[in-house]
């Protein structure tokens, strides 16, 4: 079962940093990665992509996370990134932005990775993401803080949000999303944390790190396919098998 680290932030201007992070992942045995360029994906040089893809031991995918200030900002950013083949994620504390993002089929992922954003999760957003076959993201990186006060506060918020998501059968994924190398962990270790501290059944936790991430990647591929209309509806040309 491939376990994903679904959010590894890297700096596109610093290849040494990327190399170091990938080496760390190699030592930890992480093979499936979703990279997020901190300074956006638009100005990424093809040479950099080639260099990254030369790390043959990894299966690497890319994502872009928008943090729009308001609805117009979200619309503008989505327009700019219409042809990007990355996973498109939106992270905002603004309820209107969240609702619009959950309705928009171009958005693959609504991220609830920040402490302030987790608290804004509502059943309405979960319902909209289910209708749109998009996903919700939670991150365990926040738990790796040194401050026990913050850790317990985050644990409470994450617990509430995850229990609500499970109750409503939401499509959710869990990522690491750490800033410091030394907070990076193998997804299997994070599954244990999700199971023991957040009371997620082991199989559901494994799904959030594996099957659901694969489904998310599949969704992105479908979005890029011009013959694809909606879930279960695809135009088949003459001679196509599927």
């Amino acid at each position, binding site marked *: 079962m491939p376990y994903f680290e679904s959010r590894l932030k890297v700096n596109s201007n610093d290849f040494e940093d990327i190399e170091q992070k990938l080496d760390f992942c190699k030592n930890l045995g992480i093979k499936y990665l979703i990279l997020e360029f901190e300074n956006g994906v638009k100005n990424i040089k093809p040479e950099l992509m080639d260099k990254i893809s030369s790390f043959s031991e990894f299966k690497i995918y890319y994502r872009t996370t928008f943090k729009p200030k308001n609805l117009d900002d979200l619309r503008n950013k989505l327009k700019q990134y219409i042809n990007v083949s990355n996973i498109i994620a939106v992270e905002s504390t603004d309820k209107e932005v969240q609702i619009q993002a959950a309705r928009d089929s171009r958005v693959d992922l609504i991220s609830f990775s920040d402490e302030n954003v987790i608290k804004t999760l509502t059943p309405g957003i979960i319902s909209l993401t289910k209708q749109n076959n998009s996903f919700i993201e939670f991150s365990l990186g926040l738990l790796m803080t040194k401050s026990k006060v913050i850790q317990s506060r985050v644990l409470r918020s994450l617990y509430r949000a995850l229990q609500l998501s499970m109750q409503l059968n939401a499509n959710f994924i869990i990522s690491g999303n750490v800033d410091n190398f*030394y*907070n990076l962990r193998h997804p299997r*270790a994070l599954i244990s*944390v999700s199971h023991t501290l957040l009371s997620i059944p082991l199989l559901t936790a494994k799904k959030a790190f594996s099957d659901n991430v694969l489904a998310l990647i599949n969704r992105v591929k479908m979005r890029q396919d011009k013959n694809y209309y909606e879930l279960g509806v695809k135009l088949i040309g003459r001679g196509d098998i599927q």
Partner: protein
Amino acid sequence: MLDVNFEDNFGIIHCSHQTKEIVMSSLTLINEISGNQVILSPIKTTGTIRNIKNVKDLMLNKK
């Protein structure tokens, strides 16, 4: 703790199958020992000590 080797960076922990996830998550949440940043990452789980020793030998030979 059955075995620990700081040179090759590994250790073997013995626990019941019911407490495996608890042990793994507690190791995961350790990120500092005496001011030094550390990562304790699970590599392999097996049912018998003999098996894990075989895995250990294989890994050391690979290095």
